């Protein structure tokens, strides 16, 4: 297998994502966990860009990295005092969680790597934004106007629900 630039970029992205995810799941300070989550989201956006879905990568950067992470940081600052650390995990709980994780990871990887996926590579080519817009607004067979409308109602309900739950009584 020859080493191409594409492969090098992918390996860097993969290592970046995995290391930051492990740090986000294990670090003691929760604000740092949010920061590592932000890095994982950046890496995921990088994978989308590499798969030639630039629109999806931009959406990921805007909504996840720009919106949700800010929400996390604000709520962490609201709910935790300074120098707050997660308590030390008890030994048997740590071991039980680790064993369950490694076992299920091994089973999933084994099943997946035994399967032979047919296409070995994908055709490069940028997805046209015009295509996305037409599919999003079309009522035909592969049109997505119904989920588009439903998610707008969902977001409205989420705004109202968030205010209702979090307001002072």
């Amino acid at each position: 297998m020859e080493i191409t630039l594409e492969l090098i970029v992918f390996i860097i992205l993969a290592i970046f994502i995995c290391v930051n995810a492990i740090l986000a799941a294990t670090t003691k300070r929760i604000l740092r966990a949010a920061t590592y989550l932000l890095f994982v989201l950046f890496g995921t956006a990088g994978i989308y860009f590499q798969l030639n879905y630039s629109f999806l990568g931009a959406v990921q950067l805007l909504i996840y990295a720009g919106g949700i992470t800010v929400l996390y940081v604000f709520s962490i600052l609201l709910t935790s005092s300074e120098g707050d650390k997660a308590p030390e995990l008890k030994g048997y709980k740590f071991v039980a969680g680790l064993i369950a994780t490694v076992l299920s990871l091994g089973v999933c990887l084994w099943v997946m790597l035994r399967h032979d996926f047919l296409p070995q590579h994908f055709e490069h080519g940028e997805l046209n934004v015009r295509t996305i817009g037409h599919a999003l607004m079309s009522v035909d067979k592969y049109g997505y106007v119904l989920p588009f409308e439903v998610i707008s109602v969902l977001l409205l309900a989420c705004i109202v629900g968030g205010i209702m739950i979090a307001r002072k009584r």
Partner: protein
Amino acid sequence: MIKMEYYLVVSTILMFVGFYGFVTRRNLLAMLISVELILNSVDINFVVFNRFLFPEQLEGFFFTLFAIGVSAAETAVAIAIIINIYRNIRNIEVKNLREMKW
């Protein structure tokens, strides 16, 4: 050439790291961050399957697009609930959370 399995390996690792965090964390916000990791891994899977197996259709693409929107809504409501819990019991540790109604 990058094989399809490589992407799937990355997303599997991401998924089980999130699982580990969800099982071992004792803070509600940290558990939510782990759920976010799991959601991300599933998004990567959808996009990779779409790109490699059905490049002329857009199902996985739109599923990921809507999943990102739904996860934004989910995070907003979850954080509202967590702040409400904090207002009532002054911390957000799972072990102090015994009742659902005050």
